[in-house]
């Protein structure tokens, strides 16, 4: 959580764009990563990330934390944007079919000599994740890539925390089995 986050939120709610700028800088990478792992392409990830922060800025005056961090709200918006994206623009593709990560997601910020190895690692991990159910994959990436707590994930997915822990446990067991079979 960003230091003085509550202060930035209150100022941004009152229309202080500089305060929102701090929130944007702090959360842009994790929200972009969350979306990119779901949509797989740079252009779509950029478009949806932009839409998420635009919605957040516009709707911020009516934001109520309800005991959860600001990031949970951003992830909820991001998840809904991805669902809308698959529902409207790509109705023939399911949200659970996000098995391909395009290499251009990495090119800009990775050294050329390590790009190939990194791409290979990502493809391998992503293939393993691809064998999980959409729900399991979502929980695992939010828990171990975005570092969200089970309570935050439960809030974003609109599920009970206990349910999230069960999904996580089953996903880990399944991943373990997959990696044992295909080390």
């Amino acid at each position, binding site marked *: 959580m960003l230091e003085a986050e509550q202060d930035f939120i209150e100022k941004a709610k009152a229309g202080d764009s500089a305060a929102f700028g701090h929130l944007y800088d702090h959360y842009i*990478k994790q929200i972009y990563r969350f979306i990119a*792992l779901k949509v797989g392409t740079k252009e779509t990830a950029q478009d949806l990330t932009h839409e998420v922060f*635009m919605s957040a800025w516009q709707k911020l005056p009516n934001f109520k934390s309800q005991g959860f961090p600001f990031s949970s709200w951003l992830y909820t918006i991001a998840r809904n944007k991805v669902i809308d994206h698959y529902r409207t623009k790509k109705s023939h593709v399911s949200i659970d079919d996000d098995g391909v*990560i395009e290499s251009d997601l990495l090119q800009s*910020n990775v050294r050329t000599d390590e790009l190939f190895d990194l791409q290979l690692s990502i493809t391998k991990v992503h293939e393993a994740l691809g064998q999980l159910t959409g729900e399991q994959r979502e929980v695992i990436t939010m828990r171990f890539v975005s570092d969200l707590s089970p309570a935050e994930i439960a809030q974003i997915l609109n599920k009970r925390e206990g349910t999230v822990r069960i999904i996580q446990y089953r996903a880990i067991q399944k991943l*373990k089995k997959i990696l044992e079979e295909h080390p």
Partner: protein
Amino acid sequence: MTEDFLKQLLQPLRRIEPEQTFIAASKARILLATQEPPMNMLSSRLRIRFFESLTLTGAIALASFLILIAFGSISYLSGGGATLATSFNNDALISEAQSTDFQLQIKAVTYFDESAKQVAMALDKITQPNAQDPKK
């Protein structure tokens, strides 16, 4: 498999990051946009809670009720209501009740008067001594 191992395994995915040019352009465009005005606290809370709690069945029931109210209002305003309202006038009800009762009494007296005459005439004919026997 520990959680630390899983974090390490998924570490490459953390390398996915947006381009700096995209970040700068997107941020600038967002901060130029205007915010939505804050909604009134009470009305927004009531509105959200009311509509969020509506199920499909509840929504249909509410719509049916509103349609019923609308048709009832139209019917009332187009004259049916005026007739109904006058029927609750006590004086009119009393006078109506009295006149109805009176007419019934007159009709009953007339009936008994006429029927009594006819019966008396029939009895006279039967009891006359010189009345001819139809068999003769």
